[in-house]
Structures are given as C-alpha cells and as structure tokens.
C-alpha cells in the first residue's frame, strides 16, 4: 500500500488531521514552538560548581546524565556531559533568568533552534521503535529518562513524560518537516493524529 508520505510534499509541514486507516488512532502528535529554550554548557571543569549554583540560585537539580528534571517552571534535560537544555513552560527571558549562572556556564539562546513534538497514545512506542535505537520499555526508560540521539538521520533530544506513553521531542528547526515525515510514515499504520500547537 502506498506510503502516507505521498500525501504531502517534503517542503511543507503536514496539515492538521488524521493519517492512516479510518477509525484508528494509535498515536497523537502535537507540534509546538518551545516557549523559551537555552543551552546551558558548563565551562571547563565547572560542572560541579554549576550544579551547586543552579541549585542554590534557581532551585534547579541538574543531573549530569540524560534525564529530565523539572523545577520552578523549568525543565532541564541532560544533553551531553556538562550540557543541559533548559526548557521553560511559558515564554520568558531565559537568558536573564539564567544569568546568575554565567560565571560557571555558557548560556546560549536556542528558543528558535528547535521545534517540539509531543507524542502520546497507545501505539507511540511502536511508532518510535521505527526510528529510536533506545530501549523504551518503561523499566529501561522510565518517566524523566532522556536521550540525545539520531532518528531517521535527524538529531533529536527526547524524554518520557509521566503517565502512559507520552514522549517529548526537540528537533532542529530545519528538520521539522523531515521529522514529521518520519512520524507519519511510521505511525500511519496505527492511525496518527497530527496537530500544530493543539
């Protein structure tokens, strides 16, 4: 059967709607622009000082491991040794909020560098198995677990949200259509609902 990819061009985000056999919906995708996002990268040898400062001044628990933690409206995601993506729940001047950490870290604005994809639904893991080379069994990848990896030749950072079968992805902006194509190609057999900022 013809691939669902033939239903939209490689140069446009897919239209909101359902893709796949009638009457099925195994996965829901919501595309969102991050309200505010920055990269926090510890300066040479400064990871422990940064961790202490982040906790003392902003109440953030930076785990130096691929994990997402949340505090004070900010999610921090370990994205490499001494590197965290800081994702705000609401629009804000993240650079200003993180400024007290500048002595220990390089802070780089990334709000526009990424597009977010939130996936949920009973067949989400079946879809993700088609691109993610990480074991997503809840025992191996519990809520809060995160990974920075490659999906269908696209770099992504993703994590599992609490609750059933819910995952967040950050994808480089120029790859957003390519990533959407991966999702729809892989999810159409289960039925996939696609929505922007829904």
């Amino acid at each position: 059967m013809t691939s669902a990819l033939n239903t939209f061009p490689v140069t446009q985000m897919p239209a909101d709607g359902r893709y796949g056999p009638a009457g099925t919906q195994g996965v829901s995708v919501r595309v969102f622009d991050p309200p505010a996002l920055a990269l926090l990268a510890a300066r040479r040898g400064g990871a422990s000082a940064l961790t202490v400062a982040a906790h003392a001044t902003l109440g953030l628990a930076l785990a130096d491991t691929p994990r997402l933690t949340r505090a004070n409206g900010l999610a921090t995601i370990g994205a490499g040794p001494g590197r965290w993506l800081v994702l705000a729940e609401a629009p804000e001047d993240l650079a200003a909020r993180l400024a007290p950490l500048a002595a220990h870290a390089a802070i780089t604005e990334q709000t526009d560098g990424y597009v977010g994809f939130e996936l949920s639904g009973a067949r989400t893991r079946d879809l993700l198995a088609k691109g993610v080379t990480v074991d997503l069994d809840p025992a191996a990848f519990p809520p809060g677990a995160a990974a920075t990896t490659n999906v269908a030749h696209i770099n992504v950072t993703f994590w599992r949200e609490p609750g059933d079968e819910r995952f967040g992805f950050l994808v480089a902006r120029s790859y957003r259509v390519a990533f959407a194509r991966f999702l729809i190609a892989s999810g159409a057999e289960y039925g996939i609902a696609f929505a922007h900022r829904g």
Partner: protein
Amino acid sequence: MSRLPSGGRVDRARSLSFRFDGKTYRGFSGDTLASALLANQVRLVGRSFKYHRPRGILSAGPEEPNALVELRSGARREPNTRATVAELYDGLDAASQNRWPSLALDALSLNGLVAPFLGAGFYYKTFMWPAKFWESVYEPAIRRAAGLGRAAEGVDPDHYDKAHAFCDVLVIGAGPAGLMAALAAGRAGARVILADEDFLAGGRLNSEVARIGDEPSHAFAARTVAELASLPNVRIMTRTSVFGIYDGEYGAVERVSDHLATPAPFQPRQRLWKIAAKRAILCAGATERPIVFGGNDRPGVMLAGSARSYANRYGVAAGKSVAFFANNDSAWTSAFDMKAAGVNVTTLIDIRREVAPALAARAKALGIDVRTDTQVTGTTGQPIGGALTGLAIRTGGRGGRLAADTLAMSGGWSPSVHLTCHHGGKPVWQEDIAAFVPGRTPPGLSVAGAARGTYGLGDTLAEGARQGSEAAGDLGFTATRPDLPATEDTPAGITAFWHVQGSKGPAFVDQQNDVTAKDLGIAYKEGFRAVELMKRYTTLGMATDQGRTSNVNGLAIMAELTGASIMETGTTIFRPPYTPVSLGVLGGHHRGKDFRPTRLTPTHAWAAEQGAVFIETGPWLRAQYFPKAGETDWLTTVNREVKAVRASVGMIDVSTFGKIDLQGRDVGAFLDKVYINTFSTLAVGKARYGVMLREDGIVMDDGTTARLGPEHYVMTTTTANAVKVFQHLEFCLQVLWPELDVTLASVSEQWAQIAIAGPRARDVLARVVDTGVDVSNEGLPFMGAIERTVMGGVKARLFRLSFSGELGYEIAVPARHGEALARALMTAGEEFGITPYGIEALGVMRIEKGHVSGNELSGQTSAGDLGFGKMASTKKDYIGRVMAARPGLKDPDRPAFVGFKPVDPSQRLRAGAHFLTIGAPADMAHDQGYMTSVAHSPHLGHWIGLGLLKNGPARIGERVRAYDPVRGNDFEVEVCSPAFIDPNGERLRG
C-alpha cells in the same frame, strides 16, 4: 486429487483460489504455493538455470533450489520466490520462470526442432549443430532462457519499514527447542522474542507425528504457543527471518504483508528489525540433504522429510506411489508416517546392508518393500515434462527397475549452523551424525536442538528448556525449568553416503546452479580443490538457496576426490544474510525524496511564493534563482539578478552557513590556534575573515568570526563544512587543549541570516532596524558586528560583510522571525527594486570578485595555493602550520589561484578544463592545472573563470590553452587577477 482425505494443519473450511501459469486451482488456508500445487498434481514447476531441465518441488522449506516462481504481476512481480515458503492467499497469481514461451509449450517443443534439448543430453552439446541454427534459433532461445525470473519494471507500489526491538532473550526458531527455550525464559519473567520464518510456529512438530505427553506434537506446539502468547513479556514474531548477527544486534525481516494479495491500507509490505538481545538461543533446526545420483533432479524426486511434511502438515500426498532412498533412519520414520497418513509408500531403498531390526519389522508390518544394500542408479520420466516414472536400482552388483512417481530421498541432516558463523566461527564435523555442528558461536548465542546436531525429540525439548532457563538465570531471573513431557525418541542411525558411483545421467549436486558431480570432478582435475575455489569455479552453493541442500554433498565429494577428510576440507564461509533480503526493506521509508532528510531554510515558504527554483545543496534546499515571467532560461534570470545587485540591492538567505557560538576567557587564544591568521587581537564589535587548515596543512574551511563581547564570539563556516568544523573544534578542545576555557554551541538553527548587498543595501537596512540603531559607515563600518534590534524589538545581529564585492550586510534574527525579516526587507527595498537572488547569482558574484568557495576548497589546496599565504601568521603556531611547510606544499610550481578570461570573448569557459602551455602536447606530463569555477559575468559581458595554474600569480597576462576533451573545447585563455571587479574593494567599503 493428491489431497489426503483428512489431516494436516490446513483449514479445509477455507478454500482459496489461485493461479499458476494462467490456470486456476484451489488450495486451502494454511497451504504454501508448493503444497497447493502438489495437491493439484502439478509437478513440473520450473526449468533449471543453465540446462533448462524440467524441475519440480524438492523441499518444503527455505532450502528450495528448484521451485522458484514469479509471484504476483505488474509492479509487484517478485522473481525467484520459493513456492515452498510462499503462503497461499486467495487470488495468488504465480508463473513459472526460465521457460519459453510457456512451461507446457516448452515441453512440446521437444518433439520438434530441439528434441534433445530436454532429454538427458547436454545443453551445450545440443547447440553444436547445425551450425547455421546458432544465430537464428539457438542464440535467441538461449537469450530468452537466460537468467532466473524477471524483476518488476514498475516502481514498487508498496512501502517498507524498519524497527528496533530489545529483549533479554531472543529465540530464533519456534520448533521444539525454541518453544521450550522461550517458555523457560518467558516464565522466568525475561523479555523474550521468539522469531520464526514460518507462518505457523512449531517447526518439525507440525511436520512429524509424535506423541508429547498425552497429545500429538502439533497440539503440544499450539498449546505452548498459546501460553507464550499469553505472557506479556513474550513477543512471538512469525513470518520473521533472523538473517544475520552483527555487533550486538540481530537483523531480521518480518514479512508483514507477503501473505496478502496487497498490503492493508498503510501497512508496510515488510519490516526490517534490528534486535538488540542480551542472549540468543539458536533453534533453527536442520536441513535434509539429497543424495547425488543420476537423474536426481526430476520432478517427483524430493527430500524425504519434505514429503513427510506435505503429508502431515498439509494433508497432501506427494505422489501416487512413493519410494524412499536413504542412508539413515529418519527416512524410515518418514515413510512410516506417510503410510499411516494414507500415502502409498511402496519401497524403502537403503544403502546400508543392515538396519535396526525394529525398523525392518515395522516396514514389513506396513507392507513396505525393503531393499537394503541398494542404490538408485538412474531415473526414468515422462517424455513431456520429465516427471518421474521409474527408478533404476542396483543391489550389490545386480541391477533392477522399480516403478514410482515419487522418490523421497534422504542423505541425512545438516544442522542450520549459518548464524553461528557470522562472527567467524567455523563449523565442526561430527562423524557419528555425519554433519557439521556449530563451532565457536557469536557472543551471547547458544544453540539448541537439531541446529547443534541434537535430533531426538526428547533431547531437543530438554536442551531448549535448559538453555532458556540458563539464559534467563544468567540475566538475574529466577528460572525453573519447565516440566519435560514424555516423548518417544525415534532412531537416528546414519551411514555417511554422498554419491552413487557409476549412475546414469547427470547427477546433480546443486540443482539451483545446475552443478553436477562431474563438474566437481572437473574442478578437482583443474586444481580448484579448496572449497572456496571450488565454489567459485563451479558456482556450487550460490544464489537464493546459498547451497543449503548442496554444500555438504559438494565438499564431501571433493573430499572423496582429494582423499582429505571432510573436516580438513571444511566449509565455505557462511555470511549474512541467511536468507534473501529485499533491497526495499533495507531502504525502508528512505527512498525518493526521503532518501535523506530535507532541511528547509527559514525563508523557504517565502522563496517558494516568489517563484524560486530550488536546488539541493547537501541536505538543504536552497533557492537557486528566482525566474520572472518571460525569462526562459536560467542564465537570463541570473544575469538580471546579478545586475540588480550591482546596480541597486538584492537579498539572499544565507542561514545555511554553519554558525558556532564560542564563549569563554580563552576564545581568542583558541581561534589563534585553529585559524592561520590572528584573532586574539579582534576588537569587540568586529568580524574577521579566517582560514583554517587540517592538520596535514590543507585548507579545511573559511569563514568569518565576529566578536560580540569580551568572551563571546560567533563563527560562520561554509554550508558544506558546518558539521565538520564543529567536530574539529570539539576535538581540539576535548583532546588537544582541554585546559582552555572555551565552550561551543551550534547556533546554526537558532538564527536565520539574510544577506543584503548592493549600493542601496544600507538604505534598506536602515529601514528595518529599530529607531536609534546607527548603521552609518561610522556606526557599522566594514567588518563591523553589532547586536541590536530590528522590526520592532526583534533581537538581531548585524554584520557588515560582503561576499559579492558590493556594500553588504548580513542580518541574523531568531529563526522564527526569518520569514518576517525577508518580507520586511522586500517592503523596505521596494523603492530600490530589491531583488531576491539565489545561489547561482551568489556564485557569479563571488567569481567576479575572485573569492574562493567549495570548488577551490577541494581538500587538495593549501593556503598558499589559494593566495592566503600572506594571511598566515608567522608569529604563532596553528593547526596545519608544520605540515603546510612540507616541500611539496611549498613548491612554487604548485598550481595556484588566478583568474582566466577567454581570448575570444565569445567562448564559453568550462570548469574542469585543463591548462597547457601553448604548443605543448595534451597529456598529463604537460598538465599545468585546471579551471575550478566559471561564470558568465554580466558585468564584463563574457565568461570568466577561476582556476589553479602552475606558478599562476607570476603569469598574469600570459596566454595558456584551456583544454577540455570531455566537452570538446580547446582554446586560449588569458591569465588575469582573480578579482574581475573592484579589485581595490572600494564598493564594499563605501
């Protein structure tokens, strides 16, 4: 009908219609194409690859060498499909292959011109005479006959998928050993994947008749599968072939929709699995071997266990009168089974002088004629189609004849050791079972059951259970071994036997490749005795079946010829894939435009609105040019764009450049180490052009780096090298100078960047910056870099840079605002006729200006070659400095960067043309370099070029010959400065 009145694992309530060679037949759900053909008494299924001999069905599994068909039609046509594994579906349409014009007509042609063609005579001999028939008859016939099957010509309408799976224990094969292994590990709580290439789990339990506990073997299989299916930690994957073992991963193909006429909507046809398993247990069973004797390839000659499988699993009698020919006990059990199932088994021929008395007694009780110490020396067949009618036999020295339409043969069993060899393990010959068993296995893999030469059913069940619980135990699960039900073990005696000496007619070893025992004799005589040489000389063991039924016979015959033992002779190497894997499934969704991801610039939608023609540059789609109505060729458009920029103002999205954020105390010092020129002196608010080398002294990349703050810099790289440069800088920081306080971040995606260029560029810029932002020559001088706001509070980085040679700026805004910036610039520049331009015009202008780009940064050029020699600092060390000083790179005779213009201005220059001194012969000994980039300069009205010419800068004004034999151009060009316009840079400083 050859369908037995009852029995089999087929669903007799579900009758299916199918076609073979255009004729309609009926079969049942649960049939394979092969079992359904046999049920319809279709015995002739195809013709052989080389000799065009009639062939039938040899086996009942993936080892099949003969019954290869074209399945489906049109764009879904799939050649070389093994009828023995093709699951029957309603409406299945298959055709025999390698015959012309049809299987039946081909046979009829026997009576005519090429009578000997299908007889016992050799194909080659047939075509020796009459000579004049070669061109008119034989060659066209051979050409039609050549090859096996026809590939589909249309685009595959189906799609394919790839997926990853993780488990504690992967069990490969769902026969008795595999079921018990999966049950033991699954009950212990381990995550288990049980994969089987068949559509019905159970393996031999469905093909044999044995009691396990108080139930028949197939019922035991069904019950065990049901329990496994009920365990949430066990995943059963039927129709899934594990085809290779790689580094910690197992490759498998799941045939999701092969058993359907067309896949269900949005279902893939097949799915490629990469399975990461902590442990794996190979329970792949064993493959029966044929015996090599004259005429052993006739339709009607098949493997004994397969004939048994057709009777027990499919309820099909392979023939009306079935004789057996064997060297081992398993064939006797097969014969007894089939007799009990209602098949007319007439005779048991065994090469052994004696067999176990119990077997002989059972045969007698069943009324089967037993011929021990007997060999089959030849076969007779029907004149049309060649199907078996009788056997020539020899008992002791005495010949005889037997009538039979089916001969079930068994030379013993070969464990399916293939996967155990994928990490270099070599199988080991085990004399008592006359078979190769696994040697060293890949890490984490154990082997159970017939795959390791354990043939008894009870032993197999026990071995599977033990290995399953051990694997789970190793991984920390508490495993108790499942209770082992009582079984009756069948005898498995064997006397190694390969080849009937002195038999009549070609004795086939490899039926798929038409390799005979005689061919092996030739290979021996001609010195191709080592197995790998023998394989390649004779083609034994090649193609879709990879010699499953022929390899051991072939090397055993070679061992007989050389006098070496079978172990000494050894096997050829088993490589992945174990079974044919379609290219489509390896590609998955990555085909056509999805071959790789497409990256879109922030202004893509705007450019599309403007009518841009796009071009792929790496993964990016960039605007190549923006044709206007009435412009019929790209050059017209590009000339207009270039002229508009030089006359007024134009704009282009340059977001694709790599952008790297550098922060820290030591960035200046770091940049000094990676660039050939000095950056530590760069003032805040300024940008500088830099060139970086590889460690070997060759230019890696160029670009500008701006200092935005005391400890904050931003570097741009070329589009092509964005990743490579980032990697290089990370390597330098992590490995070479970890003490430096420098932190990198890619900001390529964060910032949209648009270049505006032309004499009115400042006017346009002034209209998009916010009130109070000074973009005058004083406020933003040449090579200035400042952070301000545009479009009413949008953060922006403003750089005064020029690639075109005109007054130019690059404006960076957060990517979400990129499209708005493009629109704002169009509005702001409307008065000046602002012209969007693409990378063609960008290229023309950089060539006019004499800037190097990708064509010159070719990975073969030094800084000196490209005219950057003076830029290289002599006061500091930097990557590539030492190696750039090698004599070869310092040679003044090296081709160096200069410009070229045609002596006859009407001539079109071509990149790739080589330079020759006028009068010198056109050969490599006189090569002087080559043209790297050309463009039509609307400014000058003729073609211009850049290139690398020996000692070029010293030869300005000289004429050389530009020789381009590829496109047939050969004319004189004048060497000139690469800066064709504004050599003093007055425009860009204005």
